[in-house]
């Protein structure tokens, strides 16, 4: 319908989207031009490609396979702390990778809790480095995501269906065949594809738990070519491959996924009349407890060990924390300057939304390499490490922010566009009086997400940084590398607090004083 309800200006959104597109595609072109195809791919490059795909498949399969029973248990049980647990499932998304890795090492590493117990029992110790560790860390991050997506699928089954099933005296098998399996067939491929795509661009996990000829991802190989060999041609060639792999996976994931994993409404259970048997109840309890333990144990270890370690932190780690805070805030401002105009423009020009897809398909290390190649002839890229990091972090968070903001803007236009137009509330006044107040909550959430992701990011900064310029995640990585375990644990706790704290501040800021 050619509704003239609201005069939305789309040109600021067009400019913002064009900026993002130029940044992503421009750096890609810079990388392609620099790539030395004649050098060809060596055996180690092929190994990196194989490993990237292999660990992504394994991570996605394991995450989803574990998530299905946990989601089912959560969907049909009501218990004290359920709401907390569902919220906790969202935590890994903003948990800094390096912190999670430290937590996992504390539980499963050489001197970890598990190996301590195994040694006490006289059993051989478990090895966390290499393929195991990479997959395990990916499952730690993505299983909760999968649980949330699948739980949403379960709760999308209308309560009436379950009433009808109870009326018809469905056995658990009937329930599975008629209600649950069709739902899973719809939801699981999307969840699988998202996780697969996320693991395809894994860098920090591979950097910390992988490495070596047997456990190097393409992203890590770019970093190594760049950092150790300073072979820009090779790095660029690998960058092209990474874009092909991750971009392809992202396209598939977008096509398959329709559910919004951030959505609310997960805190209700569907009333059901099946699965009331004692055995099933206990089984569900065991599943829920194991999932909670899997999440809480590493987090608990970080807090436990970190409290002592905070006092061991060297001064430069505290400086790095201050740097991280700045980078995170700058990144959030940049994100808002990009996302808000794009989301507003997308209410009229749907095409603008697709710039988010570019963000998902691109890789931070490729953008980083491209920027390096472009900056190198004119300025010292190392000096620009922090601004570049803030910018790349903002672009990486853009797809998630748009996913929250675009529907929110559309709702405001739909619900209040005509009313505003009939009262002559237009232009900047519309922005101030109607749109921004209505967007407070999603804006707060998007800002919090960006700030936390940027705070914990260990990507581009590793590419650019020198001894003086480091963010806290990088400083923490260096502490771990030099076996200063105590200090690293302290830095981990500080980083964890900063990431969750800044998310909480923005999110709460957006939510308070909001009227329905």
């Amino acid at each position: 319908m050619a509704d003239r309800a609201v005069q939305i200006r789309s040109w600021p959104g067009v400019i913002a989207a064009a900026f993002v597109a130029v940044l992503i595609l421009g750096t890609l072109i810079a990388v392609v031009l620099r790539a030395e195809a004649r050098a060809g791919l060596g055996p180690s490059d092929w190994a990196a490609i194989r490993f990237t795909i292999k660990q992504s498949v394994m991570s996605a399969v394991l995450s989803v396979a574990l998530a299905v029973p946990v989601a089912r248990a959560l969907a049909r049980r009501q218990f004290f702390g359920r709401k907390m647990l569902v919220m906790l499932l969202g935590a890994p998304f903003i948990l800094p990778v390096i912190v999670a890795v430290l937590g996992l090492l504390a539980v499963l590493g050489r001197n970890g809790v598990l190996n301590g117990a195994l040694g006490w029992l006289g059993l051989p110790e478990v090895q966390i480095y290499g393929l195991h560790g990479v997959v395990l860390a990916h499952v730690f991050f993505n299983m909760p995501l999968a649980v949330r997506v699948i739980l949403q699928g379960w709760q999308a089954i209308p309560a009436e269906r379950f009433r009808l099933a109870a009326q018809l005296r469905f056995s658990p098998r009937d329930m599975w065949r008629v209600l649950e399996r069709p739902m899973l067939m719809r939801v699981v491929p999307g969840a699988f594809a998202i996780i697969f795509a996320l693991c395809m661009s894994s860098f920090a996990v591979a950097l910390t738990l992988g490495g070596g000829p047997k456990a190097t991802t393409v992203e890590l190989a770019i970093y190594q070519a760049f950092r150790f060999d300073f072979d820009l041609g090779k790095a660029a060639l690998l960058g092209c491959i990474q874009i092909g792999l991750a971009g392809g996976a992202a396209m598939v994931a977008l096509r398959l996924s329709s559910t919004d994993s951030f959505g609310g409404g997960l805190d209700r259970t569907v009333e059901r009349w099946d699965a009331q048997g004692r055995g099933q109840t206990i089984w569900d309890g065991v599943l829920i407890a194991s999932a909670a333990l899997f999440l809480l144990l590493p987090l608990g270890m970080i807090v436990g060990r970190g409290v002592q370690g905070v006092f061991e932190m060297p001064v430069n780690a505290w400086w790095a924390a201050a740097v991280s805070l700045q980078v995170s805030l700058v990144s959030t401002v940049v994100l808002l300057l990009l996302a808000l105009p794009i989301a507003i423009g997308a209410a009229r020009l749907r095409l603008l939304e697709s710039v988010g897809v570019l963000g998902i398909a691109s890789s931070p290390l490729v953008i980083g390499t491209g920027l390096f190649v472009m900056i190198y002839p004119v300025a010292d890229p190392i000096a620009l490490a922090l601004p570049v990091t803030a910018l790349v972090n903002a672009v990486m968070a853009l797809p998630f922010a748009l996913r929250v903001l675009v529907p929110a803007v559309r709702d405001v236009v739909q619900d209040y566009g005509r009313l505003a137009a009939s009262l002559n509330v237009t232009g900047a006044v519309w922005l101030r009086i109607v749109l921004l107040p209505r967007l407070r909550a999603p804006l707060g959430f998007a800002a919090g997400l960006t700030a936390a992701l940027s705070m914990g990011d260990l990507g581009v900064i590793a590419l650019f940084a020198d001894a003086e310029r480091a963010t806290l995640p990088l400083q923490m990585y260096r502490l771990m590398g030099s076996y200063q375990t105590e200090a690293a644990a302290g830095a981990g706790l500080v980083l964890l607090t900063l990431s969750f704290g800044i998310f909480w501040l923005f999110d709460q800021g957006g939510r308070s004083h909001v009227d329905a």
Partner: protein
Amino acid sequence: MLTLEGLNIRQGAFELSADIHIQDGARVAIIGPSGAGKSTLLSAIAGFLPLHHGRILWDGQDIGALSPGQRPLSMVFQEANLFPHLNIAQNVGLGLRPDLKLSSAQHERIAQALEVVGLGGMEVRKPAQLSGGQQSRAALARVLVQDRPLVLLDEPFAALGPALKAEMLDLVSELLDRTGATLLMVSHDPQDARRITSQTVLVAEGQATGPHDTGALLDDPPAALREYLG
């Protein structure tokens, strides 16, 4: 005087034509079968829909090029007439100044309007703290301060119970007595039309015709309307 001159609206396969003159101060109901285009006609007059051809004139001036907020009319919608994050005084104040930079005289006027519609002293309440009927009253207070010569109502009271709806219609009637504005009111209930309007525009079979005398039309409805009224 409102004139719809050779008006034609098209939306896909849907088409509606109108050739209508409405006198100043008239109170006109727009009735017809659902889906016939009652709200569409109102939307076109308010400036939300482009015209395929024809003109909309107010006192001989073509208002077709004006944006919705610049037209000499105020409108109350089916729902969402108030911004939930603004208080009642601000919601009403938007009718005086869209940027809400209100003078003390304007605040005074808002307070008076709220008094008139029975919401005296409720300035700082948020819409969520009001009942459905009170929300309608607040929207009508805004119509009062806007003081435009034409008022469009797009079934704003449809969600209210019969007694409350009658009360609101009487309030509308009272406000019109004060301002002398012309009323166009979409309704699917013939009782509403009888209650406060003397004239009726019938929208049926792609045509808006009238205005007819409300009583006579409802007493002896044409075939298209008879089927709808049952």
